[in-house]
Each structure stands twice: as structure tokens, then as C-alpha cells.
């Protein structure tokens, strides 16, 4: 069993906190993606799991074993580096066989294992080459082969696809998912690329400024972002986020701002002083042109043709929203347009903390309206 358990892990470099109190449970067989922008601490966290960067605080266990202070070589983990770190003076065969050679396995066994791995990764013809004679994709496969050659407790991968061109990246993504399915072992994968995260992960852990923002399946993270940061990070283009105010009108809540009046799917009463500043979030693909009760009014600034779809940038009040729909949208620059979105596709976030807001129904007698919009994560 290779369940990785990270408890309150923190890493500080002088005054900078790279990883801040992260607690994360990675089950056996999971494909967990650590996702976040540059400098969010995802690579530091991965290197801490690998044992290359010691934690300032916290504990890491692999299976039942506390490995917080175990040196990397005794951790039973394999890692694929962003640079691949192929030993430049060794042939492909010697690179792949290195982990076995370091463990002093017999030569015949090493040769057999290397050939077996090379066959699965389609590297058999390249075994005698040096890394510098390989293309980017081939190097990536050799790095993968070096991780595969022994049967490690878990695979750690640090942005392994970032040096590949777009086409190869798409193909390798599928291969990695397939490999994960076949091996059934634990993968911890670091990336800043949301497409890699969405397509390969069984679970995504989103980090921001060293803190864990949300952990969940790709569907959960995309459909119910726990914070405005997550909402703004995922999706291409990301979710439209507008400053608005929640008020009640005739027993229903509305999010209002300049040129915005969106009816929410919430029945409730808020007195004037209880109305709350929020961030209103709607995904570009959930915005519709027109509709019976249009909630947004604006002017088209730009229409972009993506081939299969079109993107329209619309100025609403002093904000800019993006609308995505199949071609043709029949919009042109300068058009006045009304937009609507289904209530179930509307997200609310706290203005200061950025946390997701949910409506908690209370008995109408208890008049605690503002607090009812609490921001506990669902």
C-alpha cells in the first residue's frame, strides 16, 4: 500500500513561506495533480515528498511509515524531473538501468528489466544512444522508463510535459493516463497546466501562495470552485468574476451591480443593512445571448474566432465579461447585447476572503440574514 499522508506540512525559506500548513491524503492508486500558478509551492511540496527539500514543520507518511526524515534513496519513490535529469554521460540503457545498478542487482536482471521497459515505452531502438542524441519526446520517455524500471511505492512527476510541443503533449497525456490505469499505482503530478490537471487527475489539489485552496475531483473543482481564486484559475477563458451586491426583492435574492441584475435560485429575505458585497461568478460557456430574464447588459468590444467556437468580450458596467459559444455568435464589435445565465450556473464568493458562499436556510423567525450567507465550503 502506498498511501501518502501529508500532515500540516510547512516549508519556509528565510522569510518566504513556500508551503503553508498543507494537509493532504493521497490514497493508493490515485492520480493526484498538484495544480497552481508559478510560485504557489507545488514543486516544493513534491520535492518535500521526495525528500529533496526537508520540511520546516509537519509530517509525511508513506503507507504506515513516517518518512519525514528518511533520505530520498530509502523512500521507495520514483521521480520524473521537469528537466528529465537524464545522466548525459550514460546511454539510454544505462540511464534506465541506473536505479537497479544503484541497488546492486545482477547484470542479467538489469538487462532483462531494461529491455522490458524499453519495449513498453517504444525505446528499444534507442538503447545505445546518449541523451543528447534524443528528441524531447524520447528523453521524456527515457525519464519515465527510469522511474518505471523498479516498482516504486509512488511516482512523483514535476511538470514532465512542459518541455514538449503541444501535439506531443496531448499524445503523452493520454499515454500517462493509460500507464496509470495499467499500473494502478499512486501518481503525484505537479503542473501549472489546467488541461493536464483536468484530463489526467483523479483528484486535483489546487495551491495558491503555499496554501491548499481546494481538493477534489476535476468535476468538483470545476463545477463548485471553493474560492474565487479556483474559479479564476480553471477554465479557458476563466470564470467571469464581477463585483456585485446581494439584495432581496419580493422574497428572492438578486445579485446587482451596474448593468447587472441576476436573479439567484434562492428564496430568502435580506434587509437593506444585511445585503452583502459579493463576487459574482459565471463561466463564459454558461452565458447565453438574450433570454427571458436577461441579467447583464453590455456592449461587445471584441469577437475572437477559435475555429470551433467564438469568444465575445463584452463590457458590462465597468467590468468585462467573456462569453463563449458555438459559431457563429452573430455578434459584432459595438453591438449592444443582453446576456443571461441559468441560476444553477451562478457562483457567489465572499468579497474579502474569496471563499464560496452558500445559502443556509434558517427559520424565518431568526433574523440573522447576513450570517446565513456563510462561506463554509460545501
Amino acid at each position: 500500500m502506498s498511501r501518502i499522508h501529508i500532515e500540516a506540512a510547512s516549508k519556509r525559506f528565510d522569510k518566504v513561506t513556500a508551503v503553508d500548513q498543507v494537509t493532504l491524503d493521497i490514497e493508493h492508486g490515485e492520480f493526484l495533480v498538484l495544480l497552481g500558478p508559478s510560485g504557489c509551492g507545488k514543486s516544493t511540496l513534491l520535492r518535500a515528498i521526495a525528500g529533496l527539500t526537508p520540511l520546516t514543520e509537519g509530517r509525511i507518511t508513506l503507507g504506515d511509515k513516517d518518512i519525514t526524515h528518511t533520505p530520498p534513496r530509502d523512500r521507495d519513490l520514483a521521480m520524473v524531473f521537469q528537466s528529465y535529469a537524464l545522466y548525459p554521460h550514460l546511454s539510454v540503457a544505462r540511464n534506465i538501468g541506473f536505479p537497479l545498478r544503484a541497488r546492486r542487482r545482477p547484470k542479467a536482471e538489469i538487462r532483462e528489466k531494461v529491455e522490458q521497459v524499453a519495449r513498453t515505452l517504444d525505446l528499444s531502438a534507442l538503447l545505445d544512444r546518449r541523451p543528447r542524441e534524443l528528441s524531447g519526446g524520447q528523453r521524456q520517455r527515457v525519464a519515465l522508463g527510469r522511474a518505471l524500471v523498479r516498482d516504486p511505492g509512488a511516482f512523483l512527476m514535476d511538470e514532465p510535459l512542459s518541455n514538449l510541443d503541444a501535439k506531443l503533449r496531448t499524445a503523452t497525456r493520454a499515454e500517462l493516463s493509460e500507464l496509470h490505469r495499467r499500473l494502478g499505482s499512486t501518481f503525484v503530478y505537479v503542473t501549472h497546466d489546467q488541461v493536464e490537471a483536468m484530463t489526467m487527475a483523479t483528484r486535483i489539489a489546487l495551491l495558491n501562495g503555499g496554501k491548499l485552496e481546494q481538493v477534489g475531483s476535476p468535476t468538483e473543482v470545476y463545477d463548485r470552485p471553493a474560492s474565487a481564486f479556483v474559479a479564476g484559475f480553471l477554465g479557458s477563458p476563466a470564470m467571469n468574476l464581477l463585483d456585485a451586491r446581494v439584495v432581496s426583492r419580493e422574497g428572492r435574492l438578486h445579485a446587482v451591480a451596474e448593468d447587472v441584475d441576476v436573479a439567484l435560485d434562492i428564496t430568502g429575505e435580506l434587509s437593506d443593512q444585511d445585503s452583502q458585497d459579493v463576487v459574482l461568478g459565471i463561466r463564459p460557456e454558461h452565458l447565453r445571448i438574450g433570454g427571458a430574464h436577461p441579467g447583464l447588459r453590455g456592449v461587445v468590444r471584441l469577437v475572437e474566432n477559435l475555429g470551433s467556437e467564438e469568444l465575445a468580450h463584452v463590457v458590462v458596467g465597468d467590468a468585462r465579461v467573456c462569453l463563449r459559444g458555438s459559431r457563429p455568435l452573430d455578434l459584432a464589435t459595438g453591438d449592444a447585447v443582453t446576456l443571461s445565465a441559468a441560476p444553477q450556473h451562478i457562483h457567489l464568493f465572499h468579497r474579502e476572503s474569496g471563499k464560496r458562499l452558500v445559502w443556509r436556510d434558517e427559520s424565518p423567525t431568526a433574523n440573522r440574514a447576513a450570517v446565513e450567507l456563510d462561506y463554509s465550503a460545501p
Partner: protein
Amino acid sequence: MLMEITGPPKAPPVTAERPSPLRRVLRGAPPYLYLAPGLALLVIWTYRPLTQTAELSFHSWNLLPTTPMVPVGFANYERLLDLPDLGQATLRTLVVILGLLPFSVLIPVVVGLLSRQVRGRGKAVYQAMVFAPMLVAPVASAAVWRWLLDPGGGAVNRVLGIDLNWLYETGSAQFSIIVITGWHILGFAVLVVSAGLAGISGDYGDAASLDGASRWQITRWITLPLLSPTLVFLTLMTVLLSAQWTFPLIDTLTQGGPADSTTNVYYLLWDYSFHSYDAGLGAAAGMLLFAGFGIIAAGLVWLAERLSFHDN
């Protein structure tokens, strides 16, 4: 009927007007102008003396401007090869090179590997301390070492509790020259090794440690092979420059003695020219050295090329 669509229209070939020849020359000139000062210095200080030496090696001359140079053909070379001096000096040069290799390669590698643990400000202080002997003028250090090695009350004899006349006995004189020169160049070599180690991406060591290699295995299988271009460079420097590095010490401490036991090839050719005033013989020795070291250097450069790994 189905028809192929027409592609973008093709234009007839067009030739752009070429600038005038003068303009082209002026535009091409800057790289050569940048090279010119360096080339001029090289010609004045290296190639011109080299050709003059080659010319001198076929003449007999006693360095006096009033005495004419007498052409003697290959006589200087014949004398040089007949005399036992050159062979013996070459052998001694070989001893010096072998004696200096531990100081220029072996110890620096050990120090470089161990001192990787030193970080921050400590590292700079440490490297400055190791490098300091390089900054002491050889003649000044020779004076200090002569005093330290004094057979009467020198510190070395007192510490070792022996009574050895270091600089005036055949075996110990050569040994002293080697150790003092080694002490001089050690800091420089450590600095070169540290730079070489810093140039090796930390990812290799990290990857190897996750692959299960011990620290010793990482050093032997990863670090040292990747450091080999640096080591070949240091070996090359030692082979080519040992005789020159030792020269100021030999000249101030032993003058090639006792009984020629510290006379290496450089000291020998200097001795021919400026002690015996046989400039032709000195020039001939210089030309032979130039050819010999040239071949060795070419071999080592070829080896360095073969050993360098271009990663990424």
C-alpha cells in the same frame, strides 16, 4: 464536376537591388575591426617571437648586439640531442608534472567535494582563504620558504624534529620545489573544481538519490564523470605549465641545483641562453619544447572534447 481550388497566387521571382560594393565592405568590416587589436597583440608578442626563435635556432649567437649571428644549419639541434642534458631535464620535468598532479587535480577534487557543504558567506571566506597563496608573489614566498626550510633553525625542521638541508640535497630539493609550487596552485585548482561542480545541475544528484544511489555512488557514477572536462583541463594546465610555475622558485631557491637536480626543461633553455649565452642552442631547445608540448596539448584538447557532455 469536382474542381481543385486554386492556391494563393504565385508571383514571378523578384531580385532586390544589391547595395554598392563599398557599402557591403563597410557593413562587413566591424567584426574584423573588433578582432584587430587582439590579433595585433598576438602577432607582436607571440607569433613574431616564435618565428624569430625558429630563425635563431639555426644560428650561433652570444646575445651581444655587436657580434653577428652565424648560420649553423641544424648544428644546434644535433648538439642538443647529443648532450645528455635535455633528456635528463625532460625526465625531471616529468617528475615535476607527476608530483604536481596531486596538488592540481587530486586534492582540489577532494576539497571541492567536501567544501560543497559550506554555504553562504562562509563559502566566500573559505574560498578566499584557499585561494590566498596564489596571490603571493612567488619570489616573496620563496624568501619565506627559504627561511622556513633553513637547515639551522627553520620551522620545518623543528616541527618535524629532523636535521635536513632541504634545498641543498638532490632528492629533497626537487621535493621542496614541487610542494611549494603545489601550495601555490592549490587554491586556483580548488576554485576551478568548485566552478566545475557548480556547473553540474543539482537535478542529476537529486535524481540519482531518488534512484537509490548512495552519496559515494553519486560521486563516482555521476559527479566525477560530469566533472571530467574540468579535470582534463586541470591536467592540461599542469602538463603544459608545471615547468613555468616552478621557474621562479627554482631561480630564487636552487638555481637548478644541487647537481642539476631541479633543472627542468624550461630552466635548462633559460640556462643555455642567459647563463651560457648560447642563444642558438636555447632557441633550438625552445623549438623542440614548443613542438613537444604542442602535440601533448593537442592530444589533451581532443580528450577534453570527447569527454564533454552537452546536456539539455
